[in-house]
């Protein structure tokens, strides 16, 4: 069967009508991965054996015994813990680490009967905006293989765009779901802080991290959010959603007020992005909504505040990777101190080290007030700016990313340019708000995303609005990716993880 363009809802319906078995569906995705992932490099690990075993267990059940989503495949960003399955965060320091437990979202999906295809590439520990910071491989944008998929959930976005899974989970600390979704032409939702349990999400910046869906359309995003949301007694910062989002069905935007954030539009974005964004603004008007410019002066300080707060928390969160209990330990250590220094110097990549150093510095005695405390005050200002704006507007909008996908290697030498990729998304994390990126059009053949931001825990309405726009804009979702035979042996050989269950090891499909 051809899975190109298939949504998760599509999979569910095919399974329900028994037009396809779970095994056939999983095999089809494994074949697709086999045919295209040599070029995309989205997967760090494909668990063909586990997925096929799970699929045949689903097929053995009578139709009446199945849960609604049972048998639908999914892929996970490799920062979510799956019991017994290697979880690396795309870092050498976690090479070979198999968590002794399931993340809460993983347990929820498992209970709902979803089938895990494998683990997806990311910037090491989710630090980056291009997925080039992976210790293992560079993921390519399915719309242009010379370009990055964005990041840090680049593997998740590319995988969904290339139909290597119907949907995927990512995590978003400063835009890590929305920015790659925008660059790869898929839907990416960052839920309100607290909507989804973070238990089992390897922490980057605890006060900003949220897990969320990357999907082919808004209906899938709503369904996946409903599957993973909820208060979790294991995560004291989780509260869940007041009510399930359900199936978004808004057809118009009558009487809704959309604030166009001045500081995140115009000159801040490249012309091609501005153009697409203005067509989205027109679309809102055509759907009965009202758009008006609104200034949130403090959001321009978002990137600066973020690059103090996130590295500060990261410096503490990543301290546990010390070579003592799990993961990488240097083979040559004279004493304890040397073991720490060598393990961490050899195990972490350059960007992770840079952020650990920035964060350590910002929290140090004598600097705390000037950096960390000041950044937290800025965060409060941003939060207040949003709160004031939501007194006048139902939603706020901006481009998701100031640019379309850039070429591989273009920004790696310039961290600041890379950091500015998240200009539009970072303030949302600092305020803890929900935001979705939906495909809004193309600039020079590359996808451009629209970011819609809602008030805290307004996911139901937010996805309703996104659905109305999606229906109106009708943006093409399938990249022109040819289904050649499997990638060359040479390109396979460059894929580092030795322990991964690769497709070369087994016969898949017919």
């Amino acid at each position, binding site marked *: 069967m051809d899975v190109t363009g298939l949504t998760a809802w599509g999979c569910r319906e095919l399974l329900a009508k028994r037009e396809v078995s779970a095994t056939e569906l999983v095999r089809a995705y494994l074949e697709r991965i086999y045919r295209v992932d040599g070029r995309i490099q989205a997967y760090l690990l494909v668990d063909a054996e586990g997925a096929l075993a799970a699929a045949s267990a689903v097929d053995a059940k009578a139709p009446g015994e199945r849960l609604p989503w049972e048998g639908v495949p999914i892929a996970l960003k490799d920062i*979510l*813990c799956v019991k017994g399955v290697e*979880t690396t*965060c795309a870092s050498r320091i*976690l090479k070979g*680490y198999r*968590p*002794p*437990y399931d*993340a809460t979202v993983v347990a929820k999906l498992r209970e709902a009967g979803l089938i895990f295809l494998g683990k997806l590439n990311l910037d090491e520990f989710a630090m980056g905006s291009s997925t080039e910071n992976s210790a293992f491989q560079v993921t390519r944008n399915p719309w242009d293989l010379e370009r990055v998929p964005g990041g840090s959930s680049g593997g998740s976005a590319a995988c969904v765009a290339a139909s290597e899974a119907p949907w995927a989970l990512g995590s978003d600390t400063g835009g890590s779901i929305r920015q790659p979704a925008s660059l790869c032409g898929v839907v990416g939702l960052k839920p309100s802080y607290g909507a989804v349990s*973070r*238990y*089992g*999400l*390897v*922490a980057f*910046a*605890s*006060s900003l991290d949220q897990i969320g869906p990357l999907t082919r359309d808004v209906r899938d995003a709503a369904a996946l959010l409903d599957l993973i949301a909820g208060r979790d*007694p*294991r*995560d*004291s*910062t989780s509260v869940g959603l007041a009510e399930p989002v359900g199936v978004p069905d808004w057809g118009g935007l009558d009487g809704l007020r959309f604030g166009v954030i001045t500081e995140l539009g115009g000159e801040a974005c490249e012309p091609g992005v501005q153009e697409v964004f203005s067509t989205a603004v027109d679309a809102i008007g055509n759907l009965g909504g009202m758009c008006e410019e609104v200034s949130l002066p403090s959001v321009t300080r978002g990137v600066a505040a973020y690059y103090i707060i996130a590295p*500060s*928390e990261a*410096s*503490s969160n990543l*301290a*546990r*990777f*010390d070579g*003592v*209990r*799990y993961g990488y330990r240097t083979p040559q250590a004279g*004493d*304890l*101190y040397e073991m*720490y220094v060598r393990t961490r110097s050899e195990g972490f990549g350059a960007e992770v080290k840079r952020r650990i150093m920035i964060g*350590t510095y910002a*929290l*140090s*005695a004598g600097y*705390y007030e000037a950096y*960390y405390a000041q950044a937290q005050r800025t965060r409060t200002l941003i939060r207040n700016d949003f709160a004031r704006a939501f007194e006048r507007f139902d939603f706020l909008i901006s481009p998701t990313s100031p640019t379309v996908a850039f070429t591989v290697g273009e920004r790696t030498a310039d961290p600041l340019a890379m950091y500015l990729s998240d200009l539009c998304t970072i303030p949302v994390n600092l305020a803890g708000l929900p935001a979705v990126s939906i495909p809004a059009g193309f600039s020079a053949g590359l996808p451009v995303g629209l970011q819609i931001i809602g008030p805290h825990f307004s996911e139901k309405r937010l996805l309703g609005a996104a659905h109305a726009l999606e229906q109106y804009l009708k943006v093409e979702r399938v990249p022109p990716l040819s289904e050649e035979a499997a990638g060359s042996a040479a390109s396979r050989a460059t894929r580092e993880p030795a322990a991964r269950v690769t497709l070369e090891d087994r016969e898949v499909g017919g």
Partner: protein
Amino acid sequence: MRQDVSKAGGLVPLFGNGGWEAVIGLEIHVQLNTRTKMFCGCRVTFGEPPNTHVCPVCLGHPGVLPVINEKAVEYATRIALALECRIAEHTIFHRKNYFYPDLPKAYQISQYDLPLGVGGHLDVELEDGTLLPVGITRVHLEEDAGKLIHAGGASGRIDGADYSLVDFNRGGTPLVEIVTEPDIKSPEQARAFLMQLRNLVRQLGVSDVNMEEGSLRCDANVSVRRPEEPFGTKTELKNMNSFRFLHHGLEAEIERQIALLEAGESVVQETVHFDPVTGRVFTLRGKEEAHDYRYFPEPDLPPLELSREYVERIRASLPELPAARKERLIRQYGLSSKEAAILAADRPLADYFEAVAQATGEPRLSANWVLGDLSGYLNARGLDVEACPVTASALAELLGLVLEGTLSGKMAKEVFEAMAASGKCARDIVAERGLGQISDVAQLEAVVARVVEANPGPAEEYRQGRERVLGFFVGQVMKETGGQANPQLVNDLLRKHLGTAAKA
């Protein structure tokens, strides 16, 4: 890097000499006896096989999150209230960051600028009966680290060990840290404070408070100065895991500092370790010393809001605290201040006393026995009152025999020893040994009448006014009764009979 600094300086003057005054503040860690750990569901244990009570959370696996143990918050609040602290309505946890193999996350979840309790005090009863008020700066909650065992190498420390093993059973156990003001002036006072604190915490039922097992730990900040001068440079003294070592460690450190200053040198602000084997203090100078803990608010935990109602509910559930009990013992039973203080500091003993006093209705006699013979017996054998073979009701029965005149005080002591040795009750022992005093008037009257009749000469002498002849008659009656006659009753009966005879 180990340096013995005990011999620094020249002559070591004796403590208290040379006009120096010590200034001591204590930092005490109390391990709570909650069923589960501070931030996960693992059981709190002691002495179990290594790493048998661990989970992804207390092992610091990637992705795990802490969840506050409600019971630990309640226990910490009990301690803070018992120390008369103000309880914060809004309190938060901080991360204290440092690398060490016994600290799985490489940070300890602790409290920093918004601790659970502040501004309390504990008044310490000193040997001479005076009270030393010691301020409590703060009481806060945190998690314990694991335990390291260093194999090989001479020092027993991580540097130079062949290898080190970690046991994470203790990792994540709830700890309450209590910090005092620098109100303590001598090792004796420090010891008295810690003893009283231990008794208090034990009465709250929130910890085993056992120094040998590590559920009570004490570090000290120590400096010396000339009276009325500003504080000197302080050192932090660690590793004193018994009351004796606390005393010895403080003594050694105070002497060391005085010696340094008298030799014209200065005290360096650093951590000093007590070596119980040599009785000396030493420092580990080097990279371990450069600590910047980079405290910041723990983003994984929401603030802890303790409502007034919650705090008042816990306050109401506190047992009677020593200070209040002492006052009540004085008021209710007429005890001396010293007697009341001793009892109030030892809850089981005070309970024992109250049970005896209420059963006998004679608090004076009960106090004399509980603080005298009973305490003597317990102290000689190193027993707690809970382990005493003579229960409060058994002692009350014995005292009842004294009060009704069956036993003299002297005989009662003998019976008490026998009760403690055999576990039998007082009446059984009295019956077995035929120890009871004869207080039966009819029985004694017959003996008295017989003795008076058989000795008409001395009887006549008595009647003529020779009072001391009475002693002769008492002796005769005692001889006839094997010494068991109630002396007071014998006296009364003899006077009656001799007098009667005179009239006849």
